[in-house]
């Protein structure tokens, strides 16, 4: 079983998924601990590490380090180390396909999509699918489904988000139209 999948960057900022219930505080502690364990290791040492105390000392951490991101899978003894290492590879490749040249920013801004991608690979801590093509196909279908649902109603929202994404520095952040109340002049009533 996979107990948790942690993704964090070189500074320990998390993007993650837990399959065992932990409270939010414990989760953050686990991330810190794992980050501590993993980030101190050299680049060219092996990709395995016994887990920290919180997640259970008998478990293994299997990780890969890509550019700025660590992908850490916490697994128990029923998983094969190399198998999981391959799985991480598949995961990253899949992300790469889904985001077209994935980078850390993609994961930051589209955490939900990362989760959805992961959901096609690992379910409740069990490996669901390892075939990348199959995974990508399913994700594409679901995305299409989502688009078709958005339909016309989604169009303005998309337009707005496109505007937002233009990232013009002059535009003040957080335009909040809610504050501007449109006043209808009080017309004198006809008597």
């Amino acid at each position, binding site marked *: 079983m996979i107990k948790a999948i942690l993704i964090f960057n070189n500074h320990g900022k998390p993007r993650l998924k837990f399959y065992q219930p932990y409270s939010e*505080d414990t989760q953050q502690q686990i991330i810190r601990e794992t980050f501590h364990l993993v980030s101190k290791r050299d680049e060219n040492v092996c*990709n395995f590490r*016994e887990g920290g105390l919180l997640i259970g000392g008998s478990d293994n951490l299997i990780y890969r380090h890509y550019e700025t991101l660590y992908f850490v899978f916490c697994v128990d003894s029923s998983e094969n180390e190399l198998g999981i*290492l391959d799985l991480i590879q598949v995961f990253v490749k899949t992300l790469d396909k889904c985001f077209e040249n994935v980078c850390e920013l993609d994961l930051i801004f589209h955490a939900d999509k990362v989760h959805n991608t992961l959901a096609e690979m690992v379910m409740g801590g069990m490996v669901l699918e390892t075939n990348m093509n199959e995974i990508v196909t399913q994700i594409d279908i679901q995305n299409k489904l989502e688009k078709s649902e958005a339909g016309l109603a989604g169009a303005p929202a998309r337009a707005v988000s496109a505007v937002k994404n233009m990232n013009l520095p002059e535009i003040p*952040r957080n335009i909040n139209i809610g504050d501007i109340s449109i006043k209808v002049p009080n017309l004198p009533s006809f008597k």
Partner: protein
Amino acid sequence: MALKMVKGSIDRMFDKNLQDLVRGIRNHKEDEAKYISQCIDEIKQELKQDNIAVKANAVCKLTYLQMLGYDISWAAFNIIEVMSASKFTFKRIGYLAASQSFHEGTDVIMLTTNQIRKDLSSPSQYDTGVALTGLSCFVTPDLARDLANDIMTLMSHTKPYIRKKAVLIMYKVFLKYPESLRPAFPRLKEKLEDPDPGVQSAAVNVICELARRNPKNYLSLAPLFFKLMTSSTNNWVLIKIIKLFGALTPLEPRLGKKLIEPLTNLIHSVGAGRGADRAVSAVLISLSSGMPNHSASIQVRPARAGASPPLKYLGLLAMSKILKTHPKSVQSHKDLILQCLDDKDESIRLRALDLLYGMVSKKNLMEIVKKLMTHVDKAEGTTYRDELLTKIIDICSQSNYQYITNFEWYISILVELTRLEGTRHGHLIAAQMLDVAIRVKAIRKFAVSQMSSLLDSAHLLASSTQRNGICEVLYAAAWICGEFSEHLQEPHHTLEAMLRPKVTTLPGHIQAVYVQNVVKLYASILQQKEQAGEAEGAQAVTQLMVDRLPQFVQSADLEVQERASCILQLVKHIQKLQAKDVPVAEEVSALFAGELNPVAPKAQKKVPVPEGLDLDAWINEPLSDSESEDERPRAVFHEEEQRRPKHRPSEADEEELARRREARKQEQANNPFYIKSSPSPQKRYQDTPGVEHIPVVQIDLSVPLKVPGLPMSDQYVKLEEERRHQQKLEKDKRRKKRKEKERKGKRRHGSLPTESDEDIAPAQQVDIVTEEMPENALPSDEDDKDPNDPYRALDIDLDKPLADSEKLPIQKHRNAETSKSPEKEDVPVAEKKSKKPKKKEKKHKEKGRDKEKKKEKEKKWSESPHCPSPVSLQEEVDVNAVTASKDECEDTKMEAQGEEDDAEGQEQDKVRLLPRGLWRHKKEKEERSKGRKKSKKQPPGSGEVAGEAAQEPVHNGAPEEEPLPPESSYSLLAENSYIKMTCDVRGSLQEDSQVTVAIVLENRSSSVLKGMELSVLDSLNARMTRPQGSSVHDGVPVPFQLPPGVSNEAQFVFTIQSIVMAQKLKGTLSFIAKNDEGATQEKLDFRLHFSCSSYLITTPCYSDAFAKLLESGDLSMSSVKVDGIRMSFQNLLAKICFHHHFSVVERVDSCASMYSRSIQGHHVCLLVKKGENSVSVDGKCSDSTLLSNLLEEMKVTLAKC
């Protein structure tokens, strides 16, 4: 108005979405917390709006915040709202949030049951998929129980995408609801051979997880997996299967031999290129546990020579597994492993350390430990150093100090370890010191001298600021010096060391030990002085005590304070006596008379309670206070011992003990070096009959070595080498004479020493007193098992035939049965019983019943009854769709049948796990049910079974002791010489205005019936759903033909407007009967009766919810009474449950509350009371018309009883 709407939607557009939130957080790096709390406020506002899109957006943001560590449990209800959105986009967001934030403690989770069920049976595979994914993360025991059956149905879904998810989630369901394992297992097994590789891999995955915990239950699957292993090309599946075999081989050694060939093939077939290495190692790791050959270890070395870090790691991992079974083949790689200790990678070093543990022998222990000690000095980082430290101690102390030949060396190693700074394991070292000093009598003198110098040295005190640090060692040192003070060289010096003012900086518990042992020391000094007649000296010592003890009296630690003030008073009293020249030493040392024996940590638990012993009654008068005095130090010691992980001496049985004792005596007699221990002075232990039985392990001892000051363990290594050399020379001389002696080592230790061990005679002869265990201690491994282990519940025998009562709880989606293939109906089950099994199935009950039938069924069950693949309900709205899927199903069924026919024979389907657990009855099985009844009564155990059944909580089932005659939910519709029509009307919770009518058509003639068409005259209220494009007057074709004597079922969907009234529809079945003489057009009229009961759906209801419902006051009431009833109440309830689709909420004596729900969501509650000969039924329902109609129908049913 319009303006407001526009404004609303503009607002919505400018709501923050996830990306804005993330961007915002990044832009507010300085005041992130403030910004986020602001955002959470906004989100709360958004959640209050009615627009689901806004809510979904808010929940999406919350999911992100959860990831950052913010608690979002307050939004659980909103998450559920989003989960129930109709759009996939929102649903997905909802389920994702739920999977991230829900857990077993989430209280609203029970509200999701129906929503999830609806999604599971959704026509869109992605809705189902997303629900399954979500559920897998937050499934609770309740959800598992309620949804198990739905998920099981999905395991046979037409789409592999759903199938694989359903299969995988079953593991979670098993964990939470172990009762589901047996009913679901046959289908799971079936999925191992699914045509889709994804599904197959999922099934393998699940079974591997299951088998890992309880491998013995899965041995019977070995052949199947064997086949899979040779045929599968999916690496993932292969790895899993090999892992599984790794778990199975220890149980079935023959398996190992069989596996060698395919595995070597596998290794060779993938044996080229880079990927090959991986596969090889993967295979190795998995198989190594228990393979009978050495090929494994042969492969490891080349793999490690490759030296890419991951492989090195895995190689070591594999070796550690091989080590357990083939220690020798690993020991030959010692050089490599020691090299790995120098690796820069900590993981690899740790693995290597693990290996060393298993590799030590008497011969190489010192060498290995020496190597480790140098690493301790070099090591950077406390974690690794601590790890080294614990490993050193583990290695030395393993198997009851089996490999230690020289305990002085060991003590000096321990003392050297105390020089480590900042270790967390001071208490470990302390525990070892205590253990060795207590159990190895011969070493005490040496130990005491070492300990006193420890007490004297300043470096330990200096580190006392760190709690749990190395200063723990002082705890042991003080205790040893006090307890064995007779061995002290300069007791006075030690006493002073222990009374130094700096001692008060130590942690409280250590100070307490100091205080206690200062007195012991004092007592022994006093005795020495008095014996020597130095009254002055004695008084000086007392004065020292009186001067120094007050510093402890002022301690903040209660324990220290209490002990110190007690002792101070005592010493002052002694001082007075001394002033009068009264000899006091005898009395003072009497305080600490007696010797302490080591007691095994679990000894107390293992004392068997003799018969007739009342543990709560006083045996004697309560013990006097003076006796408890010497109890105290033991308690301190005992506590210490508990903390230490210990290899308990293996328990020998009586015979073994006797044999050992005999051998020991003989040996003692022959051995000139044996130091006979003086009889223990303590009465308590002498009186215990068990003392003599304590096995005493001896190790030979030559002249003790004296190394002054703090010893360096290295010296011992040299000395040891010299000694061994000498010994070897001597031995060569007298080899011929003393063959016996060589054998000794072998016998003494249970485990097999390597051959080199035999050559080494230990340097010291030491009694290792094993820890005391009470006589005939109960051998129990149980206490090693964690009773809370969730996997324990899954230890279920899967080969045992399914008992009839083992069904998954069913929440009445009877429509899903539509796709059942027709042959099924000829062979269904003679069990008119619960639609919902007893929740708490008693295991032994099944056993009892199983035994009776085991022989007869064994063969059949091993074939695993399998179920047809039901198609989910929505797909069948169109009758044609039903037809198509049914045909498909028939085909597959036929094929399957063909293969299995020979083996299964005609009995095959006698009892079968139906997909939705609906039990039907047909002519044939009536006989069988009689047969069953008989067989039930015959065996002597049946009374017991019945008795037990009676005690069980009654859900809606018939009583075991007097089963009702089998009944069918199918009622006669119409019949003539050609054809007989029976029908059943079923509602479903998903469709609030639709019911499905299943009509079974049975051909009674000798003609083939074809071209059947069903036309029904619609009423305003009820209409038949026809294929698109056909008019109201058209009939609906029946999608099959009937050869003579054959029956088949067709289903038709009707749309009902109002369900409060019963309905009758006129209809005609027209068909062509064709025989040799020609074809004739025939028809048969019928009246389709939709009773109100047929709109009800059996829905379980908990009594608290039931009570709430009744209290709500929204329900109207009505009642009926029927006289002249003779049937038992139990059967009566069963009848109501069966015919009117109720479920029993609670039953007390002859009174029961029942519940059901209509397809349109009306709640119906009943209170059924039985009088002498009458039954009264009070009903409450949200619709009064429905209730009165229902009660009328019930009256008719009851009148028949």
